[in-house]
């Protein structure tokens, strides 16, 4: 009875919507980068003076400023830097090195660290949150919810120090610092365990609470009561009837965690001496090295944007099912 629809008929608007969404996110990222440039500019001193060697005169500084382009107005520098972005050119650091090559080694390390931590966070918070939701109000639920709140309040460096103390200094099971291999990445997987744990613990606390609350919310839907009256097992009710409704909130919570994981990486990489973008960022801020700071921000922003898009996709899929 239905006339054949043009196959592209429904795809084209979906692509257009995705395109519009990406454009919006890109504009947001550009605004963020402008803010980063302004912030670095507002810090006392600039790249030329921060990297100045003892005994350099005003003339040397002026020459270096001209060399680095720091004598040009901020807006122009920002425009210049931004025009390089689409081609993958993140500019030049104060030390004269291209930012891309400066970050090509450390950034993947940070991604690996953050990615492992995110994965572990997702698995732990889903598993514990679901266990707690299966028996609300019981011992496990109270323990998990209580611990989650306590852990949530701990900063990464406190967790990191505690982990080093217990798992490294007292027991000697795991190395306390990271040695770098020939390719610039950690020499052994065992060196990743403590940094990943230090990042995971606070984020798991936060995400368990989200999972638990989202499941409790979704369990109030009328079809869940129907499933209970149909005599389905608690596991099946939870997985098939409650969890789909809770997924959008859980995905959004995890996506938010990505930002905090990347931020936490700066601290954790410093504590464990990991070769990552975090330590590059920390030294770049000390050196007032605007292009490097902006470069790290751009990459981190891109990663977070992708993760947020994935979370939105989960939400769209879940709400799309309702229509």
């Amino acid at each position: 009875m239905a006339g054949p629809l043009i196959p592209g008929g429904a795809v084209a608007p979906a692509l257009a919507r995705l395109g519009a969404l990406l454009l919006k996110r890109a504009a947001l990222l550009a605004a963020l980068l402008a803010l980063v440039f302004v912030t670095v500019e507002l810090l006392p001193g600039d790249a030329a003076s921060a990297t100045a060697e003892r005994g350099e005169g005003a003339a040397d500084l002026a020459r270096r400023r001209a060399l680095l382009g720091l004598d040009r107005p901020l807006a122009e520098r920002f425009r210049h830097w931004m025009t390089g972005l689409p081609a993958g050119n993140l500019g030049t650091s104060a030390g004269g090195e291209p930012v891309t090559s400066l970050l090509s080694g450390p950034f993947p390390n940070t991604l690996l660290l953050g990615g492992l931590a995110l994965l572990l966070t997702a698995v732990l918070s889903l598993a514990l949150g679901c266990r707690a939701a299966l028996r609300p109000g019981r011992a496990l639920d109270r323990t998990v919810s209580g611990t989650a709140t306590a852990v949530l309040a701990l900063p990464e460096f406190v967790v990191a120090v505690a982990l080093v103390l217990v798992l490294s200094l007292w027991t000697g099971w795991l190395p306390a610092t990271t040695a770098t291999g020939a390719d610039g990445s950690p020499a052994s997987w065992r060196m990743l365990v403590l940094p990943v744990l230090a990042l995971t613990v606070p984020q798991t606390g936060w995400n368990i609470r989200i999972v638990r609350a989202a499941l409790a919310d979704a369990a109030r839907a009328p079809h869940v009561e129907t499933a209970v009256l149909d005599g389905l097992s608690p596991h099946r009710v939870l997985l098939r009837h409650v969890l789909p409704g809770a997924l959008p909130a859980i995905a959004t919570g995890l996506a938010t965690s990505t930002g905090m994981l990347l931020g936490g990486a700066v601290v954790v990489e410093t504590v464990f001496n990991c070769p990552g973008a975090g330590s590059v960022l920390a030294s770049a801020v000390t050196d007032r090295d605007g292009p490097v700071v902006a470069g790290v921000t751009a990459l981190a922003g891109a990663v977070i944007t992708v993760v947020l898009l994935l979370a939105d996709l989960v939400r769209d899929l879940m709400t799309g099912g309702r229509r």
Partner: protein
Amino acid sequence: MSHRPGRDRDWTTGLPDAPAARVTGLTVTSAAGRHLVREAGLTLRPGRLVALTGPSGSGKTTLLRALTGLLPPGTARTAGHVEVLGHDVLALPQRELRALRRDRLAHVGQDPASGLNPWMRVDSLVRELAADRSTDPVALLDEVRLPDGARLSGRRPGALSGGQQRRVALARALARRPDVLLLDEPTAGLHPGLRDEIGDLLQHLAREHRLAIAFSCHDAGLVGRIADDVVRLGAAVPHRPVTAAGRPPAPPGAGATGATGADGMAGTAAAADTTDTFDTAGASGAAGTAGTASKTSTASTTGTSDTANTTGVPLLAVRDVSVTFGRGAAPVLRDVGLAVAPGTAVGVVGASGCGKTTLARVVVGLQAVTAGSIALDGVPLRPGPRGRAREQRRRVQLVTQNPLGALNPSRTVGDTVGRPLRLHRRRPARQVPARVTELLEQVGLDPEYAGRYPHELSGGQRQRVAVARALAAEPDVLICDEITSALDGGTAEAIMDLLGGLRARHGPALVLISHDLPLVADRTDTVTVLDAGRVVESGRTADVFTAPAHPATAALLSRAVTGR
């Protein structure tokens, strides 16, 4: 489907019709101390159909829920026993209760739309509860008279009509091949032909497969035709018509129902326990009253139909609207048009699944269209979920098929009704409570209900709240999508009379969407007949119904005649 007719039942003691379930002296009380059910008795036997009747709010739903062993939240049994298949379900350990529900005891709730998991496809919904892996969902869908089950089984509940959802819920219940089947208003919201088919199906299941079936129903005709026993709850509350001023002499279904209703109920319930049938007398009596009410309202609407023809620009104009769900699917609406003149009533009728609800959603802007336009007073409305001005949204209000889904569970009735008053600046803040009281009285609810939450109300009372909320916005067009399908005959008449009275006093124009042809015939000036997403006929109600030009209209009419 093969129910096991002669299968051994460990609870039988050799007697062929030992009770499958027995309720004795059951009293259920809410947290506030109100009696929802008082000293109710009920006996279900294999092969017999027991009907629970009574006005909305009389405890039908609560009694059925008691049989499942899970009372509604916030309520508790204060006296009596509930025994199902030899088990005291209110005291059974969770594991055994679960096994009982999973294999032998099926319950289908009043509101199938919200009872189906929106993320699961129809075939998984049915297969999830199947007795064995070989069960074919499509065959089950066929058995519950859902034509085209093969096509629908890949859809999710959101892409089904209200009537289709109801049958999917029934198929899901039957998939486990239960011994006891509990149905809360199984035919509400279905057109008469389908209602009779479902009635016949229930009878068939009881007779051929020896199911013990209990169903609540306010359709006296159907009860009289198929029920073996009738248990009447709260039957002592007489129906009081709502006057044109919208002020009922005393609010029916209010706190008083608990007391008067329960007393009458205890007596009749006991009678039902011993006598086998006392159906036909009561049923035909009720049908008779409904008939007279219809006649009087016919007379009252004739006056307004003249004004309908004198107006030029329609207040609301829907032109050539088409809607398609998803890629490559058949359109749900195709080139549908609808015109509503100020102060008139327009009917939209059609069989289940013909796109009536989708049309309502398009008009209020909840559903995006693939083609076509909608205009209010000649001004085009954005045809989608966004971009309508607040004033435009205020002027078109919708009351839906499913009042529970439409009311915010965390808001009291008073908040719900008061919200449009504030949002649309209908009243200054200090006058809001007084106006809420007025609106609740107008729809026949005790103003005391303002402090209650939706879950504390019966289906009929919720629908009254939904109507009050829509009226609070003082709309120009009020769209009523099967609003009486969950109400008993008397309440439905009262609500319709109330809407008619409002219209007579320069109230909103009405769009009545229904499968209930007599309701539409008596209360509308023009009617549009939908069939499979197309307008097959439209015109003056009297002309269309006396001389149907399209076979679909004729089919609807013939079903209406035989169904009544």
